């Protein structure tokens, strides 16, 4: 191999939008990338983003401004986002869109041929660029193509179907490489790198069934957390109110359904009850995501009015003219028919809230360095930009933007950072050996538990205690139960002893990481005694959930005095438990104000 040894080598784990943009940036700066992914990067979860990507293009005569986008994001995030970081993102957004346009993302256009914009939740202006209802797919493909171009030029080595296992630190504790395993041949190999960027996406699978892909298990994040990386704000998990429940996954049903006049109801005393319209007469079916989710949850779980006693409510479009539906929602309705086998133009859809996105993740500074030198994080796996709640169509933006920041920063570190000593062959082999031993041990597990059943149980636990409504009793219980699961993990029995594509053994390893991540989420939620954004906690009175005089649950308020801080979770290797602390962040630009979507936003 006649490779230019002076070239800086960056290892990027994850081939979603963030990882791919970081890859492109590194290549443009003359670096070389080892790109690791569970799957061909073109199949990464970024492609599930439907609605669009926010950027202040101001081409609709609405006098939209970057400040307005900035304010909407901070306000939507309930003032828990680092404002300097958010400002950087919203300022870069229009440039990113133009770049995507040049790359060939087939954005939907106006009759004049310029980019069309649409409305999205939590924003007063048309600000969302979109490519039909598959914006994420289209952006991911454009980046995939550009990375392929760099691959042909020799700057990118793709390691597709390789699973990241852990990072390798040198004597000084600086990240200088990683260990990965080929998912087909099961080969375990240690790689050196000047910088490692994790862009591994969200931890949706911790909740079992969610709107995320099966590969979004948070395992990589948990692995580096166990190696000393800090996790921030893990308790902030966005729940989307309208998803199609499924045993394999919950499929997202876009907010656009309600936007186009869809009504949410259940049977009460034998008659349809349009509960959102009754509970919130001002906004009706168009209440924000968290409010809608809590209302649906209440109707099903507390009142027991779900369809056939199950956790489902109707989302009804059948009263709307089918031609109109076809024009506005065609693709989405087809998806429903395809997966449910019923026509939503004729019968009401059955939906229920589902875990959708993690605002929290690995703690990073504004240029995406983690607390471990040489290790960076980028995309949904980091905690930046969204605070306590993410605005619709800001996820694609943060994924893309973070890649444009982390890539150049990784090169800067590779060139000028204090990287300490190089890894010796012995150190590399020791790291590889360690992973090999752990893997070999998994192959010999012959207990009575099935890993997939344990995963299912964990999902049920997390949904029960750490999803829409949380209270400290439940969170305590959940922590105890998760610890039991961690113990039961040791009693897993492996049925697959193959040396080819042993998915079961890999899943067993991931499951342990997921349980530890679940504990971080739960502990973070337990310690945050307030309600903020996606985190809604019920007040306890005499050890029981408190109700007001109308019998309604009483939630804690936002407590800026104590909790206007970032949750920091450290792993304690002795107890395997998360340790919580809090860290201040920059909120100097916009003064916190009450978040209330019942009235129009006031600055």
């Amino acid at each position, binding site marked *: 191999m006649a490779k230019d040894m002076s070239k800086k080598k960056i290892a990027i784990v994850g081939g979603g939008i963030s990882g791919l943009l970081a890859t492109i940036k590194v290549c443009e700066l003359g670096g070389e990338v080892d790109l690791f992914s569970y799957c061909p990067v073109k199949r990464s979860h970024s492609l599930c983003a439907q609605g669009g990507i926010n950027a202040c293009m101001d081409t609709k005569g609405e006098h939209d401004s970057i400040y307005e986008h900035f304010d909407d994001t901070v306000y939507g995030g309930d003032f828990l986002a680092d404002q300097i970081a958010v400002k950087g993102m919203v300022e870069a957004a229009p440039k990113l869109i133009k*770049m995507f346009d040049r790359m060939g993302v087939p954005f939907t256009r106006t009759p004049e041929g310029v980019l069309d914009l649409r409305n999205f939740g939590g924003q007063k202006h048309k600000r969302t660029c979109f490519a039909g209802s598959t914006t994420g797919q289209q952006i991911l493909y454009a980046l995939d*193509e550009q990375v392929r171009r760099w691959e042909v030029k020799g700057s990118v080595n793709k390691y597709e179907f390789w699973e990241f296992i852990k990072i390798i630190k040198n004597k000084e504790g600086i990240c200088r490489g990683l260990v990965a395993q080929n998912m087909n041949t099961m080969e375990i190999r240690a790689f050196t790198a000047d910088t490692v960027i994790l862009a591994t996406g969200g931890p949706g699978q911790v909740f079992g069934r969610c709107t995320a892909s099966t590969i979004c298990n948070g395992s990589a994040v948990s692995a580096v957390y166990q190696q000393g990386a800090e996790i921030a704000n893990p308790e902030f998990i966005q729940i989307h109110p309208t998803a199609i429940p499924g045993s394999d*996954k919950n499929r997202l049903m876009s907010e656009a359904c309600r936007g186009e006049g869809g009504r949410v109801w259940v049977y009460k005393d034998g008659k349809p009850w349009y509960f959102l319209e009754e509970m919130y007469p001002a906004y009706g079916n168009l209440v924000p995501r968290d409010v809608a989710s809590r209302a649906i949850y209440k109707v099903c779980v507390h009142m027991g009015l779900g369809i056939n006693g199950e956790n489902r409510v109707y989302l009804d479009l059948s009263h709307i003219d089918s031609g109109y539906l076809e024009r506005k929602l065609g693709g989405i309705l087809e998806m429903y028919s395809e997966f449910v086998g019923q026509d939503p133009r004729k019968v009401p859809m059955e939906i229920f809230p589902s875990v959708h996105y993690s605002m929290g993740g690995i703690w990073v500074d504004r240029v995406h360095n983690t607390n471990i030198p040489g290790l960076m994080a980028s995309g949904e796996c980091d905690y930046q930009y969204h605070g306590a709640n993410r605005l619709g169509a800001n996820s694609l933006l943060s994924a893309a933007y973070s890649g444009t920041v982390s890539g150049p920063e990784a090169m800067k570190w590779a060139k000028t950072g204090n990287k300490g000593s190089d890894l010796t062959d012995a150190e590399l082999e020791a790291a590889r050996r360690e992973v090999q031993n752990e893997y070999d041990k998994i192959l010999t597990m012959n207990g009575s538990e*099935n890993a997939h059943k344990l995963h299912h149980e964990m999902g049920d636990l997390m949904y029960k205690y750490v999803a829409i409504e949380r209270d400290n009793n439940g969170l305590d219980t959940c922590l105890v139960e998760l610890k039991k699961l961690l113990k039961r993990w040791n009693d897993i029995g492996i049925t697959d002893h193959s040396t080819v594509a042993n998915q079961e053994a890999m899943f067993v390893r991931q499951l342990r990481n997921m349980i530890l991540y679940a504990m971080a989420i739960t502990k973070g939620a337990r310690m945050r005694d307030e309600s903020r954004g996606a985190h809604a906690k019920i007040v306890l009175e005499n050890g029981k959930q408190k109700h007001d005089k109308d019998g309604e649950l009483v939630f804690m308020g936002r407590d800026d005095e104590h909790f206007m801080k970032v949750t920091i979770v450290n792993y304690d290797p002795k107890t395997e438990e998360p340790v919580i602390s809090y860290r201040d962040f920059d909120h100097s630009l916009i003064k916190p104000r009450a978040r209330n979507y019942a009235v129009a936003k006031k600055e």
Partner: protein
Amino acid sequence: MPDKVRFIIERQDGPNEKPYTQEFDVDYRPGLNVVAALMEIQKNPVTVDGKKVAPVTWECNCLEKVCGACMMVINGKARQACCALVDEIKQPIHLAPARTFPVIRDLLIDRSVMFESLKKIQGWVELDGSWDVKDAPIQNPYTAQTAYEISHCMTCGCCLEACPNVGPQSDFIGPAPTVQAYLFNLHPLGKFDAPKRLNALMEKGGITSCGNSQNCVEVCPKSIKLTTYLAQLNRDVNKQALRNMFNF
């Protein structure tokens, strides 16, 4: 409705092993799809004969028919498993790997050849860089709509599995990568390199290997009008051939 669904699965322990079949029963429930059934088998990998076996290996990611990972042969037809509803297909359900591609294990196949083909056709816009340049060119919204349609291709490989001219016996790159060339030729910046892509399509294994069986358009899960674009590309490569011959 029966309370069990029978699956007859063609398995293979490794790339060079012999295929064999095993049968599994999965509890029926409304809305059950093939991936969900395979997940149930993972939880309890026991055949109908009561034999405990290794769980079936397959590939899946999004389960929303956008990632393209879970393509397999279901009752003889190449399709995505995630949207194959048990209610809508004939039982017992036969699952097999798409043998147009090398099989790694069970239903897991190696489709890297498709991504290699995308390199051959130069499936990208030659960008100076990812930095800010200036406004991107305006695009005809109707052309953009066509591009959007073609850009849905998720490299699942259904069209390659169905195409009689793709397989170990032939070097045809297949409908999907071929048609992707047209996508980039449509783009206002991408079209600058259209001659390069058309020349690439004239290479061995390129568009001339298409035999017009038109299976591709029938099986495309994204309903991309593959044959229309193949014909358009045929027209374009012919013109390009004339240009090459006479140095237009």
